[in-house]
Each structure stands twice: as structure tokens, then as C-alpha cells.
């Protein structure tokens, strides 16, 4: 038998007015697994991610974390903390996700204080271990976020998320704002963290070029609906849906023909 998924959604739906942002989406992520959700802007990726972490209440469908129903956003401190222990989210913009007045060291200690009963020495030790894991040293620990580069801030965001030892991380365009050389460093770090900690990922992106290197499974969303899903390598090597092909063709490469992609995109409408 397959293991119980760490994260599963069934028939997930979210409407805003009469517009369905997410429409009948189902998937499961095994422990230590990694699922990529891709699609254009407006396809429903972020809305899905927000429902996973309880920031948005689904209009229909279920969210299961370790088999337990977590569909309704948590109410009360205990429920919120329990949800946060299970799943953490990392956002796209490393410039907005950190409090500008709080040093890196304090930012990483905060979730430790909230979730664990550690004495100050043990907490500092754990903090340093987390910073070390994501490749940050003493100099960065003492700094305020504005002194850090985008890649360094994203490392801090990862250290904070990992502090609670979550079963799953939801990464919403977590590498999109970074330039390629730094993006590749973060991808290396994500691969390493998954291998060593066994944390599962939901990796949200509009760019298919990183998917193979971060995810085992792939789900393609278009206008809130799943148009294709499967093992990442299989979908990337043999896309069945024309929309998946369009996303693949859209990635710039030698011989890239933007005019044809634009025409294909219009043909899909």
C-alpha cells in the first residue's frame, strides 16, 4: 500500500463572486514528496496554495493534512499553531516577507519561541543550526533584512519556515524574483533540504524549466482547472495537453520563436 499522503486535496474549489478561481482540483503529496503546480498568471496557483495553508477558506472540497481534515481555516491559537507546525509557506517576494526592523537572528528565533519550549541557550543553538543549514553565517545573523540580497532573504525565509520542522513547505514562486545564478543556488538548497530533512514540497511556478529539478510530480492548472497531471519527467517529456505544450514552448531557448508561441496561445482560446 502507498503511504498516507502528508497533504491531499479533494475537489477543491474557490469562487470569488461568480468567478471560479480554483475549480475541482485534486492531488496528493506523499511524505517527502514534491509536487509542482504550474500555470499562467491568474490560473489559480496562489489561491490553491493559500487554501493549503489555511489562509483562504475553500468554497468546496477538502484539504487533508496527514489524513486529518483541515479544510476550514484554523480558529484559535492552538489550532493555528498546529496547522503552522504541519505546513509552512514561503512567498515570492523576499523583500516583503520579512519585518524590516527585526534582525535575521531574531526572525529565526521567533517561530522557535512560539512553537517550542526551549531555554535561551538551546534556542540560540537551534537558530544557528538553522541558519547554517541554509548557508547563512554570523554576519548575516546580526543583519537587518535591508542589508541582505534577495537570495539571502529567501534563505532567511526558508530557515524560518523550517524552524517548526514542518511536514510540508508550500513555495509560491519562491525563486521567481531571483536572478538565475542565485535562483540556482536556492534550487540546490531546496534539493538538499528535501533529501536531508524529508520535508515535502508544493512548488508553485509559472516557469516549467525548474520543475524537473525540484519536483517529482506535476500538475498543470489553466483557468482554475487541472488540464494535465502526472510524473514530472513524463509530462515534461511527453506533454499531452496543448496548454502544457504551450507552457513548455514558452521557455526561452536557442531557436525560440515568440511569434509562434503568441499565435499558439491565441489558438487555445
Amino acid at each position, binding site marked *: 500500500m502507498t503511504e498516507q499522503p502528508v497533504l491531499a486535496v479533494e475537489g477543491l474549489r474557490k469562487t470569488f463572486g461568480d468567478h471560479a478561481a480554483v475549480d475541482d482540483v485534486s492531488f496528493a503529496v506523499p511524505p517527502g514528496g514534491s509536487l509542482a503546480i504550474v500555470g499562467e498568471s491568474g490560473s489559480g496557483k496562489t489561491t490553491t496554495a493559500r487554501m493549503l495553508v489555511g489562509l483562504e477558506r475553500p468554497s468546496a472540497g477538502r484539504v487533508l493534512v496527514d489524513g486529518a481534515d483541515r479544510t476550514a481555516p484554523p480558529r484559535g491559537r492552538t489550532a493555528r499553531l498546529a496547522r503552522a507546525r504541519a505546513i509552512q509557506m514561503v512567498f515570492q517576494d523576499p523583500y516583503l516577507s520579512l519585518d524590516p526592523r527585526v534582525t535575521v537572528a531574531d526572525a529565526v528565533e521567533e517561530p522557535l519561541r512560539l512553537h517550542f519550549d526551549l531555554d535561551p541557550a538551546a534556542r540560540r543553538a537551534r537558530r544557528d543550526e538553522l541558519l547554517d543549514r541554509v548557508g547563512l553565517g554570523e554576519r548575516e545573523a546580526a543583519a537587518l533584512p535591508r542589508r541582505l540580497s*534577495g537570495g539571502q532573504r529567501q534563505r532567511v525565509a526558508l530557515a524560518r519556515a523550517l524552524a517548526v520542522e514542518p511536514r510540508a513547505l508550500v513555495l509560491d514562486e519562491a525563486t521567481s524574483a531571483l536572478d538565475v545564478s542565485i535562483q540556482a543556488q536556492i*534550487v540546490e538548497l531546496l534539493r538538499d533540504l528535501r533529501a536531508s530533512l524529508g520535508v515535502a514540497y508544493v512548488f508553485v511556478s509559472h516557469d516549467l524549466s525548474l520543475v524537473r529539478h525540484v519536483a517529482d510530480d506535476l500538475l498543470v492548472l489553466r483557468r482554475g482547472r487541472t488540464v494535465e497531471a502526472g510524473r514530472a519527467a513524463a509530462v515534461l517529456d511527453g506533454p499531452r495537453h496543448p496548454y502544457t505544450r504551450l507552457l513548455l514552448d514558452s521557455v526561452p531557448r536557442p531557436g525560440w520563436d515568440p*511569434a509562434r508561441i503568441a499565435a499558439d496561445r491565441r489558438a487555445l482560446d
Partner: protein
Amino acid sequence: MPGTTGETLLEIDDLTVRLASGAARPVLDGVSLRVARGESVGLVGESGSGKSVTSRAALGLLPAGATATGTVRVAGDDVLAMPPARLRELRRREAAMVFQDPRASINPVRRVGDFVTEGLRAGGTPARAARKTAEELLEAVGIPDPRRALRRFPHEFSGGMLQRVMIAGALAGGPRLLLADEPTTALDVTTQAEVISILTRLQAERGTGLLFVTHDLDLAAAVCDRIYVMYAGRIVEEQTADGLFARPRHPYTAGLLAATPRMGSAEPPRGVPGRPVSLAENPEGCAFAARCRLAAPECAAERPTLRPVDGVSVACLRAEEPIHD
């Protein structure tokens, strides 16, 4: 040198820009760069390397209080010596810029029509003729129902649509030189393809010279004939887009290529180790030495200058040696 056979539209020579205070090294350090009529030229490099400062200098825009040496010429005229009235005319008619974030660079409380026509109106075009030109431009960049679009406000457009509006606005004065500073970084991949196809089609039709700034080498290669690679305020390599991919000569260029995820490859992208050189640092020798796997003792002592090696320009002491296998 490839691509410079036609009329040169943008000529930057030995441009050094220093900030007013606090920096240990110049923001730009001896930058030279050319864009000819009808040519697409890429400027790539990581965040903070000086790409935007370079492209803004072509419009005579320098960081506040900065000092510059060297020359910047657009169609032969020295931009850094232009009086304000001449600069305004330059920005209205000869050289225009498309910025990364359309939402941050288009006034949200003015109608799209005002944005697209303002340059024309300032240049003396009567209102009706300006409106007609604006409609044609919006049509050309693929905005549905251009006449109505002119009366709408920026928030009524998606990011991709607004970026088309910005391109229309940039083209309104009929510039011969277009500066595009990461024009698609804020867009998703399919919208990026649409915007690039519009930009490159109009550029080819009009014979506009294009300086295309990006940190994405694959995108630069798809759009550009020739590419300059910038690191810590200096040009470290210049060659054709094809040549750059087939045989990068600077270890930083090779590092950028290895960091770029490849669609068909099982090989994960490899990050360039270490971090960029901040403005507070001014290393003695090669600025890339701390991150370079080929660094030799002489690299920390001697500053490499841009020099021709096998028809390519490269600033590396070890450029003659093979750097990848």
C-alpha cells in the same frame, strides 16, 4: 567587430560613474558599448551589476549626485553634455525606455491615452493626430479595442497588457533607439513570449536599435544578435549570442550558463558560488576572483582588461585556456 557595420545609434565609451558618497568602487567602471541601427544588443549580468545604470545613462539619466567620465553618444550627439531642453527632446524623439515594472512606471491616476500621447503632444503634435497615432500603436501592440483603451486607467489592465501600453508609449515618438530594461521580468512565461514577439517585430519593422537588459541569458540569446556580459560594473565579455553559448570565454559567463535551467536536461542548474561584489568592496585584481574556480594567484593582483581573444572581447587573464569541457 560584428554588428557595427551599420550606422551606430548608441556609443558608450569608457564610461565611469561614481556615486556621490559611500561607495568603494565606481558603479560603472570603463564601460564601452555600441548599438547600431536595426541591431538587438543584450546586456546581461546579475542584480546590482550596473545594467540599469548603463541603460539609463543612454538617456542622460545618472543617479542623483553621481559624477561621470567618458562619453555617451546617441546618433553622434554627446548626451552627457546636453542642456536640459535638448535632453527632453532626445527622450521624446530619439531614445525611449521600456521599464521592468509597468505598474510602477505608469502614472496610475492618468488615462492610458494621456500616457501614450504625452511625448507627441509635448513635441507639438496636435491632439487629434496624436490620438490617431496612439490608436495605431495600441493596435500594433495587440490591445483590443484601442479607442476605448485610450480612455481607460492603468488598473483596468493586466500586467502583460500594461507592458504593451508601455511599449506603445515608448514607440510613440518614433525613437531610433529603444532601451528595454528587463521588460518581461514581471510577466509570466507565455505573456513574456507575446511581449517579446511584439517588441522584436516592431523593432525589425522600424529598424530601431535595441539595447535589451536582462539577467536571463537564454532570453538574451533568443532576442539579441550580440551580447555584453557585465560583472561588478565592468563589461567582462562581448560576443555574438551564438558564440556566447557555444564557447563562453569568461568564467562568469560560463557560470551563468551553468546556472540556467535547461529544459531538456536532467542536469540540475548549478549556482555561481559566493555572492556578488557589493559597492562597498573594491577587490584589487579581478572582481570575480573570489568566486572563480580558475582563479590563479596573479588574478588577485592584476586587473584584467577587455581584450580581443579569437575575435571575442574578454576580460580574463586566463581567457586563452579552455574553461569548460
